[in-house]
């Protein structure tokens, strides 16, 4: 078995992994390694040929592929070691990694371990949509990969279930490819995607978008021949009598992303069922010393830029942790998600931290509301907002030495 040791090992070579690795190196980390299971760095950005990337990070409007290219260039220049076509099979709480590639097994001892494994799409099975199981049902990201990396369309007449960002982006691309997009159905009364994608990908192309609507049956023996759409009530239950058959040969699903954390889960690192990622402090360190998490593996982000910002912070923290090897971790205070707050990160803050950003998603759509952060019963932050939607992540930047008592974040009318 090939044995290696690195100051920092990053699992995942997408934008989170590359950004974290570069930032760690810049912060003075010695040897840094990225492990990537695909044959190339870049993760899902490789297949994102649409624009809208990099406005915050590079002050330019780039495609996902160009954005990945920039990060790959930075990774090369930073002198970071990269192992592609290498799959991590297992990690331990002591930060050893068991990985495999065509040369055999590799055991790596890491000073600090960064988990940047991204997320996966929720499949049809998880929704338990009744009906047959024909060809022609696939997730939006898989369709994107088939189209942009292999050059094949999923079909001729498409219905999209869910209004997640990838589904919206693909709706537009299908139209540009001269494919009939019959409808986008969203079970909620609002989209879970970014407003800009609703406007640029759906409204501009006059694609019918039905809210409070879901697919209640898939038909077709070998290949999809159609789907049944039904209206749903406020509890998301299909309303009998509202069924409508739509003829199509493909059903594309964009019904949510799930952080990919099987490695952390197997190693027994405490997880947050709310985010699907590890429970971390404001340095993005998990409850296991020396294991850090960032990017979509920690919680699902809206923009690659936000992933990069967060991952840079995580990379710097990991470098610092390796350098200082703190014996005792600082006391932690809890950040509680109150009413209207979902997927809050970080879940803990080191007492005495100087500045902290909290991120969360509103639990529903809110109008004319207030975001408030309490320390015990005392309000330490508040801001009025006209509209909040679960499709857009909300960030709060807190400064000052106010972090001694547990915090609570909530959305108030």
């Amino acid at each position, binding site marked *: 078995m090939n044995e290696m040791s690195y100051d920092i090992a990053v699992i995942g070579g997408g934008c989170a992994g590359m950004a974290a690795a570069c930032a760690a190196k810049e912060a003075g980390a010695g040897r840094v390694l990225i492990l990537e299971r695909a044959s190339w760095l870049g993760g899902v950005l490789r297949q994102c040929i649409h624009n809208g990337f990099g406005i915050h990070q590079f002050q330019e409007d780039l495609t996902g592929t160009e954005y990945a290219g920039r990060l790959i260039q930075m990774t090369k220049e930073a002198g970071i070691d990269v192992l592609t076509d290498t799959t991590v099979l297992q990690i331990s709480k002591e930060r050893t990694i068991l990985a495999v590639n065509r040369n055999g097994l590799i055991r790596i001892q890491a000073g600090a371990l960064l988990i940047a494994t991204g997320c996966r799409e929720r499949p049809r099975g998880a929704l338990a949509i009744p009906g047959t199981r024909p060809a022609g049902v696939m997730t939006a990201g898989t369709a994107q990969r088939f189209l942009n990396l292999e050059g094949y369309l999923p079909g001729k007449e498409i219905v999209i279930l869910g209004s997640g960002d990838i589904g919206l982006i693909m709706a537009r691309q299908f139209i540009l*490819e001269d494919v009939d997009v019959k409808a986008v159905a969203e079970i909620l009364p609002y989209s879970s995607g970014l407003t800009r994608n609703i406007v640029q990908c759906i409204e501009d192309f006059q694609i019918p978008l039905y809210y409070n609507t879901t697919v209640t049956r898939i038909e077709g023996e070998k290949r999809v021949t159609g789907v049944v759409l039904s209206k749903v009530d406020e509890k998301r239950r299909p309303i009998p009598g509202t069924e409508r058959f739509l003829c199509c040969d493909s059903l594309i699903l964009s019904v949510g992303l799930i952080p990919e954390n099987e490695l952390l889960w197997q190693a027994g690192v405490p997880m947050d069922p709310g985010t699907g990622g590890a429970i971390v402090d404001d340095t993005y360190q998990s409850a296991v010393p020396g294991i850090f998490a960032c990017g979509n593996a920690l919680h699902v982000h809206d923009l690659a830029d936000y992933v990069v910002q967060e991952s840079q912070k995580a990379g710097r923290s990991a470098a610092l942790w390796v350098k200082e090897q703190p014996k005792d971790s600082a006391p932690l205070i809890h950040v509680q998600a109150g009413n209207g707050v979902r997927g809050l990160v970080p879940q803990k803050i080191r007492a005495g931290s100087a500045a902290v950003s909290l991120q969360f998603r509103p639990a529903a759509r809110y109008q004319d509301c207030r975001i408030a952060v309490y320390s015990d019963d005392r309000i330490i932050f508040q801001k009025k907002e006209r509209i909040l939607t679960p499709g857009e992540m909300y960030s709060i930047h807190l400064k000052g030495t106010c972090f001694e008592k547990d915090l609570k974040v909530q959305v108030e009318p």
Partner: protein
Amino acid sequence: MLEYDVIVIGAGVSGACTARELSRFKLKTAVLEKAPDLCAGASKGNSATVHSGHDAAYGTKKALYNVLGNKMYDRLCQELCVPFQRNGTYVFAVTDHDMDELARLKENADRNQVPGVRLLSYPELIRQSPGWSPKVKGALFAPTGGVVCPYSLVFALCANAAENGVDFYRNTEVCGIRKEGGRFFIHTGCGDFSSKYIFNCAGVYADDMNNFVSSRKIRIIPRKGSHIILDKKLAPYVDATLCQPPSVLPGGGHTKGMGLMPTDGGTVLLGCEAVDIGDKTDVSTTRQGLDEILSYFETSWRFLPQSRYFPEFPKNLIIGAFSSVRPHPDTDDFILGEAPDAPGFINIAGFESPGITAAPAVAKDLVRDSAERFGWEPNPGFNPIRKTEKPFREMTEEEMEEAIRQDPDYGKIVCRCEQVTRAEVLRAIRDPLGARTVNEVKMRTRAGMGRCQGGFCSPEIVSILAQELRIPMNQVTLCGAGSEILGKESCLEESQEEKEGSGA
């Protein structure tokens, strides 16, 4: 016209067991399967349970062969290198009425001579299997209940039969059979066959086959059952099959009861409901069927030991659902043996649950009887052992290293959720009875069966299949002609080609 001594119609579990038993004799044997792949019908979509036989009604063929078949499983699976585990079955009671039902089952089990069946009081139950809710009154425990992967079993049986000389014809649907001059003439969509003997293992279509040659008509009713699949995260907490007696369930008697079943692959099955339908091809799941399973588990979850770790029914662990159509005989019992007015035509019909369990014993008995009657000679070259490679995910580190040294494709993981390597996918395709479709690769390797349900690996599988079969990616199918996964090429690609074309 292809001539054989024996033709087996159907490559489900009964056909596969029969084919392997026939290969013990000096016979020219062929198996005809209508579907593109082996194990495409009821043998594919079931609870993967090797039943103990406690609930099959005493005196029936089902009961007899259930118990006999169960006993054969250890050796059979050892010979074929198929994972099999006797994890035991608990039938639990929450009411006095259930307890009466358990007493009745116990009596039935004893008459069936099922080994080791015990009635456990609540204290006895939790001593043996901790964590059951105090609302549970007791349970029947059948230690010989087990779990097998039904399609791994069928593939292994067929591979072993093929190694011992049996020919397999897939995509070969029998459209008619007539008997003339002591031989059967079998008309199929891909040419004609003739044989002296036929074993009818045609599942839901066994009545059609029988009725071609016999005036003693039989009738098979398609009975649909559905299961829900849960993520293997639950697996560490499920070490036995758990169910409630069928009589307490809505629409009960049709199934063996709603249950929670571990599987060989680590996922956990919930099911199943059962409903008689008209259409033998209808394997769609229905809202009503899935809701029936879900609502049962939502209310009964609190009784189960798993509720200690997952206080609420873990709906978020659902990764899939499937239905299949089982061949329910209108007589309610297996229809076995020679059709009285068609000598040489042997039925294994109405082979619903416990068919998987009973199949080895039924095939053995019927083939042995035929051999005696028709004077078949043993095949001295018969080798019962099927060697197979261990799946990568089950290898030790040393075995992984060695496998990669011999074939570097073992070092490339294609399906991340189930840790299936490129080497295993290639072997599944290149095997003599190899995979031609994405579903066939999935059934042989588990690639695409995990929590992402093929989201990540399907592009890779499609690409490997395209390379191996030397076809464009958009001719690769999910499950045979008509189920192409992709449409036409991107028009951006085309316009580029046009440009290149005009330039030249």
